[in-house]
């Protein structure tokens, strides 16, 4: 009879919730207790430098294109030495959803997520991070990558001296 199964179901439910009532809560009492997030945790974003200390970001606009909430904006420019760089670079953390798509899109490993999740400000304008707030002195998670050494267009080194390059061709040579 369904009436008995119904009653049984209700009683079973009551028994289950009763048991949980007596359990130890799983709540972590933030901010007194804090959790140690894993290094891969996706929180506050930084811009890193290459091993030689140069800015990794080449202002390629890929992160801003990948960002689903359009919270990255920048202006690219060229330095005298030919490096492409971000004249200004702004992340609006009041909009960021920490999805990590920007870090995934970045071809130079410049933009990286850190485990620092405590980004709370009284004034929302303080959540607008400019390049100087984002740029750190270090390589972040990758110690060795230097985009310009692999780019193949002779910016960080002379043409033909990059990691996977032959010396420039002599176009006037006649040898086949």
């Amino acid at each position, binding site marked *: 009879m369904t009436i008995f199964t119904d009653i049984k179901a209700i009683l079973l439910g009551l028994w289950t*919730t*009763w048991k949980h*009532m007596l359990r130890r809560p799983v*709540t972590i009492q933030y901010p007194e207790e804090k959790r140690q997030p894993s290094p891969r945790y996706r929180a506050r974003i930084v811009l890193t430098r290459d091993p030689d200390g140069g800015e990794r970001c080449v202002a390629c606009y890929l992160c801003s294109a990948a960002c689903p909430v359009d919270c990255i904006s920048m202006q690219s420019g060229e330095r005298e030495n030919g490096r492409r760089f971000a004249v200004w670079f702004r992340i609006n953390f009041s909009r960021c959803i920490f999805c990590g798509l920007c870090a995934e899109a970045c071809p130079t490993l410049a933009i990286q997520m850190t485990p620092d999740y405590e980004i709370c400000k009284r004034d929302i304008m303080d959540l607008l991070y400019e390049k100087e707030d984002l740029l750190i002195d270090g390589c972040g998670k990758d110690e060795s990558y230097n985009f310009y050494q692999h780019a193949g267009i002779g910016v960080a080194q002379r043409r033909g001296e990059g990691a996977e390059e032959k010396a420039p061709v002599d176009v006037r040579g006649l040898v086949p």
Partner: protein
Amino acid sequence: MTPDLILIAVTAAKIAIVLFAILTLAAYLVFAERRVLGWIQDRKGPNRVGPFGLLQPLADLIKLLTKEDFRPPAGDKWLFYLAPAMAAIPAIMTFAIIPFGAPVTLFGTEIAMQVIDLNVGLLLFMALSSIAVYGVALGGWASNSKYALLGSIRGLAQLISYELSMGLSLVPIIMLARSLKLSEIVNAQSGCWFIVYQPLAFLIFLISILAECKRIPFDLPEAEGELVAGFHTEYSGMRFGLFFVGEYINIIVLGGLATTFFLGGWHGPVLPPVVWFTMKTLSFAFFFIWLRGTAPRLRYDQLMQLGWKVLTPLALVNILVTAWWLVLKG
């Protein structure tokens, strides 16, 4: 001092004490509900304001009082203002007839632990619970919002349906106690609680009062998953607070009535009667909260089926059986 003046003074004092007690209890019931639900869900619940979060109700009160008091411009102004009061006041008034302790003798006068011992007390309760329906109906109507209206239509149908089974389940009690006076119903149970004679009536009454105070699994008028907040969708600030607190007062009052009708009222050994009464009442409240953490919401057709096809016929049969039994017993 004339006896009349003394009577007035004593009654006023009783009203004051009862009001204070219910309002405080209701406020802490909200707090208790949040804590208990927290435990059920392996959380801690509110524990930040004051020791163990005990000042949380105060914080809630301040919050509600300082919120914007919004009224939908297209709604009916006066009905909109009236509705929350209509929801809360009948619930409080019902408590006037509940005996919450054994009569005590003070300075030679016997004082009933009851604001007023009406000889039609039970009927008054039924009447007041019918009036409470207006709070829901007017609130939803005056808001001029589709969610609110849908909520109040559901509420009306639900409250009217379950009032019937609630009333019918109380008839055997009247027959047993041979009185409508609540103090006499309690006294009739000094030997054996009515729950022993009338387990079925108790069950019907319990389910009906769950539906009367619109609690899960009968919270269709508010159904936040479907209707935003049902009949009080458009209310904010303390007006919403009145609806909210009215619901908890209702829980206490109906718990108190269930105690009075079935669990022997304030009767009990060793401990003082008031304590017994309070414990019994609060156990109902706890059960309501526990059930809220457990049961899912009924569907509208299930609700109607349960009311009209199960509870009402059962209550009628119960009356007949009780009458037959009483006749046989002589």
